């Protein structure tokens, strides 16, 4: 171990997150591999090690025998300071070698607030931040993950983006890089060839032009790069690589459990939800595959819990059978089963009763909008009746805590809708009085609101975000409308949401703001411990960009959007139709009732959507 590191570690909190050496880590002989990949997660170890995508791609990249892929995370503040003081560069966990010695630096960017940490990790590695400042082929800096569906804000820093699912695409790129390294290609040569691989976006091959009013005029590709980059997917999830021997952290992480992914995509089409659009088409795994993988993973990791992941777990058709199959193995071994993302319906309560025989955790509903009209406008197919019926069943079954999540600032929202949130909580409270068997234990109803952020590739991508002042006005309205003592109201403040809104729909000029924030000390901005609203606002000012132009301006539908160059498979005309329907508070059927031909099925070659 590095001598400097040895001296630092006893002084920092939870040092084992900085050492590597965990069970199931992949160690290779560095002399025997041709390509070394530093797989960087721009957040802490605890967050990164809880990420299923990271775990999958770590294994797929390492399945190439010419590659050794290692993990790199961002150090917490105390470790960061110590490393700076000792002059220690960022290093990879498995070998302890500095990131600057690697051939490829691959970032997984899942959220916009991680942008400054990407820059920080490059900087801690001693690698120039901007692509144009890195002349040679190596190290090549790439990025993937859901925040890359609008790649523009990070475009000047990243040599190439991988759009969509990485299982196959990452290895295509690494194979090409392998050839390039052997044959001594220039960086330009490599990037031009890389742009021919489906899913690869090489921003330096696109010229950005702007109109006088500050909007984007065009992105013009050259050197044969495609006009639009179509995302990559994995067609057959049953055959897709899933590591049943993931790295087992030796210290506590956020999600310390086996994660099973039931399906990708979502049949619901909620209009505010980016994930519901960018992960299409719908592809499920067979219960047999999941049961086998779940059991194997428990055996190989010793985890005490299996979590079933998807955007809407209740929509997994064989859910009941899957739970039975897993419980058969899990129950006698005291392995728990967790099902986040259940819908508010009776079926969910049945499932919950099945899996929570002993411990009853709280019920959670994502209601999102306060009135039926608003829920129709956002296509959130939950009725008050659903919620109340589910609550009735749950209260009589012994549950006594309910959490309700809403967004404020959704398009078309009125004050009436906001008061509706308070009314719904009163009704739930009444429902508890009528149905609870044992009232002595009391009831806790928690209402949480966050400020809506319009996201690229969703039907609300053109919408204005409400201002911070307006959000606070709505928060206060709701606060004064909630009268009952047993109803607790929590609201997230809007500062991060405003910045996130600006970043998520930013263009290439946003890079200056991100870099300025980083230069002024910004990193780990997803953490309230480190986020500074002032620092971001100052950076917008000094870069001469108007934050509100990006966050709270409604875009005309004919405007060229910075993310138009990325094709996630869903037609823009469908998004537009959904936006129009929203303004008429008109529901659209979910994919199971009728396919609205969104276009995503064209990404599949050998099967139909949701088959």
């Amino acid at each position, binding site marked *: 171990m590095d001598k400097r590191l*040895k001296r630092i570690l006893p002084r920092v909190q939870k040092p084992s997150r900085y050492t590597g050496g965990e069970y199931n880590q992949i160690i290779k002989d560095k002399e025997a591999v041709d390509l070394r990949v530093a797989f960087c997660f721009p957040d802490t170890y605890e967050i990164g090690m809880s990420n299923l995508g990271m775990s999958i791609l770590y294994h797929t990249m390492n399945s190439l025998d010419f590659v050794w892929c290692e993990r790199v995370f961002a150090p917490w503040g105390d470790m960061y300071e110590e490393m700076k003081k000792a002059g220690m560069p960022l290093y990879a966990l498995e070998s302890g070698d500095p990131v600057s010695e690697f051939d490829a630096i691959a970032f997984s960017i899942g959220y916009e607030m991680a942008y400054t940490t990407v820059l920080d990790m490059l900087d801690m590695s001693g690698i120039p931040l901007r692509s144009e400042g890195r002349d040679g082929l190596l190290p090549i800096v790439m990025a993937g993950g859901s925040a890359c569906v609008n790649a523009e804000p990070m475009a000047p820093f990243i040599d190439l983006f991988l759009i969509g699912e990485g299982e196959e695409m990452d290895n295509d790129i690494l194979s090409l890089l392998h050839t390039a390294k052997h044959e001594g290609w220039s960086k330009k040569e490599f990037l031009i060839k890389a742009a021919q691989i489906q899913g690869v976006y090489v921003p330096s091959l696109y010229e950005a032009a702007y109109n006088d009013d500050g909007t984007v005029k065009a992105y013009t590709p050259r050197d044969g790069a495609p006009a639009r980059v179509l995302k990559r997917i994995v067609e057959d999830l049953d055959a897709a690589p899933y590591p049943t021997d993931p790295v087992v952290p030796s210290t506590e992480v956020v999600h310390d459990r086996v994660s099973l992914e039931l399906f990708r995509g979502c049949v619901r089409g909620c209009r505010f939800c980016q994930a519901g659009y960018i992960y299409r088409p719908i592809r499920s795994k067979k219960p047999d595959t999941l049961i086998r993988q779940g059991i194997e993973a428990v055996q190989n990791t*010793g985890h005490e819990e299996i979590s079933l992941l998807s955007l809407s777990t209740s929509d997994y058709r064989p859910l009941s059978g899957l739970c039975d199959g897993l419980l058969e193995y899990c129950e006698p071994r005291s392995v728990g089963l967790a099902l986040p993302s259940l819908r508010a319906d009776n079926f969910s309560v049945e499932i919950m009763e099945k899996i929570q025989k002993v411990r009853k955790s709280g019920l959670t509903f994502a209601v999102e909008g306060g009135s039926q009209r608003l829920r129709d406008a956002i296509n959130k197919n939950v009725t008050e009746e659903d919620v109340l019926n589910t609550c009735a069943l749950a209260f009589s079954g012994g549950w006594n805590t309910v959490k309700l999540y809403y967004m404020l600032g959704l398009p078309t929202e009125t004050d009436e809708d906001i008061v509706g949130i308070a009314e719904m909580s009163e009704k739930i409270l009444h429902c508890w009085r009528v149905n609870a068997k044992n009232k002595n234990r009391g009831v806790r109803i928690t209402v949480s609101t966050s400020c809506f952020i319009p996201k690229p590739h969703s039907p609300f991508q053109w919408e204005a975000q409400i201002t911070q002042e307006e959000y606070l006005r709505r928060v206060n309205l709701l606060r004064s409308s909630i009268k009952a003592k047993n109803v607790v109201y929590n609201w997230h403040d809007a500062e991060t949401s405003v910045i996130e809104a600006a970043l998520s729909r930013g263009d290439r000029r946003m890079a200056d703001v991100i870099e300025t924030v980083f230069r002024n000390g910004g990193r780990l901005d997803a953490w309230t411990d480190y986020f500074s609203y002032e620092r971001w606002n100052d950076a917008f000012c000094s870069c001469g960009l108007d934050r509100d132009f990006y966050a709270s301006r409604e875009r005309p539908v004919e405007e060229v959007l910075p993310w138009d160059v990325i094709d996630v498979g869903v037609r823009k005309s469908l998004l537009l139709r959904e936006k129009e329907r929203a303004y008429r508070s008109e529901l659209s059927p979910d994919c199971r009732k009728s396919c609205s031909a969104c276009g995503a099925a064209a990404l599949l070659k050998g099967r139909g959507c949701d088959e």
Partner: protein
Amino acid sequence: MNKLRMRFSKTGRAVYISHLDLMHTMQRAISRAGFSLKYSEGYNPHPQISIALPLSVGMSSRCEIMDLRLNEEVSFDDFRDRLNSSLPEGIEVLEVYEAEEKVSSVKWLRVRGTLEYDDRDVLQVLPKLTEFFERENIPVMKKSKRGLSETDIRPMIREIRFSSGGEGIVIADALISAAEPTLNPDLITAALVTICPPIAPDFASYERMEVFKPDMEAFR
């Protein structure tokens, strides 16, 4: 099944795993190896596994003692081998046997300190170190639940010898009190830093070598 005892080492990168995390890591490793820990009866059942002398973060050891009960009968060697292939880097089971002696009979620990001197001549430091520990009293400020308090660590050091460990390194061999009272070897460094900075190392790390009973027979 009777109470099993295992002796294991914790070295290399594993020394940074905290005591609590180690308990969890061990439980998982046991389950990966295909064994199941016995749980206590009662309202709040917990796995029957315990470590004799919790090791502080950053310290390595060749003589950790862990007691546990399993639901099944096992052969000691098979248990050791399967567990070893399920453990993270740096943790190795040395021996498994039936627990006979009471953990409370642990009294002394042999520890080995590696004292690093970045720009001092070790040969000059050596005699001064020996001299320092010949004092009658070595009072050190120690953090406890009740705040800072002064303790004399001298009586807790039964013997201590220093030798050169090569360029810039002094090796300390000490026999210290493991229980009632417990001496954390880091206090040896702390004493030098506060009382005699000229011979205090720039960095020191310790390793547990062996545990003893009051009569200086190795504890098993």
